[in-house]
């Protein structure tokens, strides 16, 4: 313990040194004024000391856990509780019912603003679920996911402003365009390993934005596309309030739809191939899985959701410009997937809601948002790489019991 404190004091001193020029000194070279913010030094020292102690404690715990896992003595209690609650219908069903009820009455009890930001959060849920397939299941790190989101949004924007296409026709087209772009961009990168993939996808993300910015004839450049209609309901005129509520229910349907489909895929021939690809590409191919088709499938499928989400995003905002499709958005969606737990659907939903809604409700906190995102990504990787809610693999029952009896 004493040792611990001693070490932490050293760490605190190191961080005081490290942060000194940036945290304490602030120069104004024009008026030749130096501002010495000594208080910051104190805060850094205290903060670093406390964090160091927590860090040490957490590291020790982590090591203990790893050791236990090595000798096969897994900590069952933690994962077990969640697993049990999802499997036990006694807990699972009422919880689901309550969630469903809250979801349904939500726009009726809260005001339009709440509904509106909830729609945005739900759009990110869909984005998270889509990227979760590409990154979480298939293990293909995509740092340019926002490109497909932009494809969807601009599909609707362009189709509407040039040809007067409505929301409902544009929605499937947007999704398909996303998937098509996924395949088109997926082709050149099939042979690349994970690290190369990261930079190339990042490049694609920026290329998409630059093309939108520069190609004015089609995308209207930086001016953006305005007056995009909100989702329609058999041509009925709607006020913004009812349109927002309507969009909300639409989003809920879409999230349910996305959960349904990703869930089915996860436990299918395709989903298993994706996971196998993530686990060991060589073995996966040697077991007869066609790498190109499987990878392209994962890309296209992830991009499909981004395309759909993009259409709704354009309809919700009624105005789109390239500013909404930067690397920051890709990073946010990625941190949703990481925080939620790669491959875990429930985790991704919770993470998306938390990460998107927190800055809205804690507006004072908005400045620190990206700082927290960054810290969360690092800490999650170190202390809880499986995410908030670990992906639970399905058990295929059936003959298990019978055969075991037969064996005995």
């Amino acid at each position, binding site marked *: 313990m004493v040792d611990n404190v001693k070490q932490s004091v050293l760490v605190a001193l190191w961080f005081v040194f*490290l942060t000194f020029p940036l945290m304490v000194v602030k120069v104004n070279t024009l008026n030749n004024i130096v501002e010495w913010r000594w208080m910051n030094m104190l805060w850094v020292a205290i903060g670093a000391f406390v964090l160091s102690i927590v860090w040490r404690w957490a590291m020790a715990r982590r090591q203990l856990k790893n050791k236990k896992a090595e000798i096969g003595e897994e900590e069952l209690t933690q994962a077990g509780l969640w697993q049990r609650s999802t499997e036990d219908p006694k807990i699972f069903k009422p919880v689901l019912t309550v969630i469903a009820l809250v979801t349904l009455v939500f726009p009726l009890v809260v005001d339009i603003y709440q509904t509106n930001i909830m729609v945005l959060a739900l759009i990110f849920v869909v984005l998270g679920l889509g990227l979760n397939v590409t990154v979480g299941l298939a293990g293909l790190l995509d740092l340019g996911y926002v490109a497909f989101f932009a494809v969807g949004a601009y599909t609707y924007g362009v189709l509407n402003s040039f040809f007067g296409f409505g929301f409902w026709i544009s929605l499937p087209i947007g999704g398909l365009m996303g998937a098509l772009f996924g395949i088109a961009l997926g082709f050149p990168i099939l042979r690349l390993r994970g*690290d190369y993939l990261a930079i190339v996808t990042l490049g694609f993300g920026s290329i998409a934005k630059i093309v939108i910015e520069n190609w004015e004839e089609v995308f209207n450049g930086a001016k953006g596309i305005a007056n995009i209609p909100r989702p329609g309901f058999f041509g009925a005129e709607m006020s913004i309030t009812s349109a927002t509520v309507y969009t909300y229910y639409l989003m809920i349907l879409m999230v349910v739809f996305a959960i349904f489909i990703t869930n089915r895929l996860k436990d299918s021939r395709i989903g298993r191939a994706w996971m196998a690809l993530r686990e060991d590409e*060589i073995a996966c191919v040697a077991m007869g899985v066609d790498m190109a088709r499987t990878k392209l499938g994962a890309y296209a499928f992830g991009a499909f959701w981004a395309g759909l989400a993009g259409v709704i995003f354009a309809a919700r905002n009624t105005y789109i410009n390239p500013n909404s499709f930067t690397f920051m958005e890709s990073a946010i969606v990625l941190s949703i997937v990481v925080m939620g737990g790669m491959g875990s659907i429930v985790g991704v939903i919770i993470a998306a809601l938390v990460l998107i809604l927190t800055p809205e409700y804690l507006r004072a906190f908005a400045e620190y948002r990206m700082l927290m995102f*960054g810290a969360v990504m690092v800490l999650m990787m170190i202390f809880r790489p499986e995410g908030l809610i670990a992906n639970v693999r399905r058990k295929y029952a059936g003959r298990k019991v019978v055969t075991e009896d037969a064996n005995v």
Partner: protein
Amino acid sequence: MEYFLELSCSGLVRASIYALIALGYTMVYGIIQLINFAHGEIYMIGAFVALIVSGVLTIYGFSGFSILVLAGLIAVIYAAAYGYTLEKIAYRPLRNAPRLSPLISAIGMSLFLQNYVLLAQTPDFLPFPALIPDFAFMEPIAHIMGSPELVILVTSAISMVALTVLIKYTRIGKAMRATQQDMTMARLVGVNVDNVISMTFIIGSVLAAIGGVLVGSYIGQINFYIGFMAGVKAFTAAVLGGIGNIPGAVLGALVLGLTEAYAAGYISSAYEDVFAFGVLVLILILRPSGLLGKAVKLKV
């Protein structure tokens, strides 16, 4: 012809900065197969520290050359300290984790450092003092190459030569090469692998900080975001040349810098980045492990 020379010079200047940053990426990758995504942030922090130090020194009456030396030195020290700490916090605990984990941790660190500087200092652009003077004797050819450009080229070249010597002839250099070949074997023959990795981060950070100070002084302004784009470009250069390969990083930087300059000059500067990433994709399609990267023999 003169126009071509001007563009070439502008491409070379970019290339030498990209190379200074790309070397850090490639060295780290060579040893622990990690893309240190936050490396661009080290470059940015180096520039910020130099700015702050030179500001303070100017106010306390130092002048000219002494400011350049002191600011550069302190920037380099701090960048090294940040690089070292970064590795300890964000990467070392993930040494044996799946490949994706340290990469995501690196992206997180990059976001964190950017926003740390934003909050600790300012989101605005800050004027960076011209530490490299614009010599009058450059006058006749100044529109092709000025003294700041010359200093950037020379400094980068010296840094790269120094790095080569360090890796080829010193003890730590040998240990680094051994670790790069086979980490387990290096450990067995008595190389302190942890120290080697720390050293790699420190050397990479030093080079990045040199780049940061040069660029700050050259373009006269910095903000918290300069590291991101420069980092991405340098990373592109490293991949282009074959990540993990030191001459490759320099070659990749040259290809990238010149491509950007010629594309901006002869086609359109609005699509500059499209060309940069386009050339990357093209080369990776033709040579999936980069220009000088060796095709990795799969160990099955």
